């Protein structure tokens, strides 16, 4: 089982550019959540996708958008990049049915640096 995989692992972009990050969930998982983790801080919830729809959203601007595909993989898009968007972006997947006590499995993350 490959677990949660994210690509790319590292990325450098210029202010104002757009970026797309990708995530493949753990086999059998249908829910994908995205987090932003700044250096020295805990992960901050961006949004969650289930059945190809955004179900929950954290306190992030509309520059952050996403998509989930029929195979449950997901993309995170960030437009008009700011220096403050530099962070580790984490993808987490969870098991079907949204059962109580369901744990999330995290990928290794994508390190985005905006210059």
């Amino acid at each position: 089982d490959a677990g949660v995989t994210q690509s790319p692992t590292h990325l450098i972009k210029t202010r104002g550019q757009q970026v797309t990050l990708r995530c493949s969930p753990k086999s059998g998982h249908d829910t994908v959540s995205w987090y932003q983790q700044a250096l020295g801080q805990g992960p901050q919830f961006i949004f969650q996708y289930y059945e190809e729809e955004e179900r929950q959203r954290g306190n992030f601007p509309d520059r952050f958008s996403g998509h989930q595909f029929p195979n449950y993989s997901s993309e995170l898009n960030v437009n008009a990049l700011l220096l403050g968007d530099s962070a580790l972006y984490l993808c987490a997947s969870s098991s079907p049915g949204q059962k109580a006590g369901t744990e999330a499995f995290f990928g290794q993350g994508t390190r985005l640096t905006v210059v």
Partner: protein
Amino acid sequence: LAKTTQPISMDSYEGQEVNITCSHNNIATNDYITWYQQFPSQGPRFIIQGYKTKVTNEVASLFIPADRKSSTLSLPRVSLSDTAVYYCLVGGHTGGFKTIFGAGTRLFVKA
């Protein structure tokens, strides 16, 4: 969503038992308590989850008192490789709904 409070940092020595306590005074009836471990530049890794009393697995134990307003993660005989940040989360579904991470507890294990 229940807010959690943990110590910012802890130091220990190899071979010692480490106990990290988390306060969650407004935990809801349906909430579970979950602990994650995170190494630098890696995603958080699930350690243990519980609802009440005591849960034990191959890496840790989780103690939850009857009122469930706090929980204690116990790591037996820590090693240098246990140096990491430990997060306590409270909620119904750590993956099913938005998961709120606090600042975590930075554990530093010394030789």
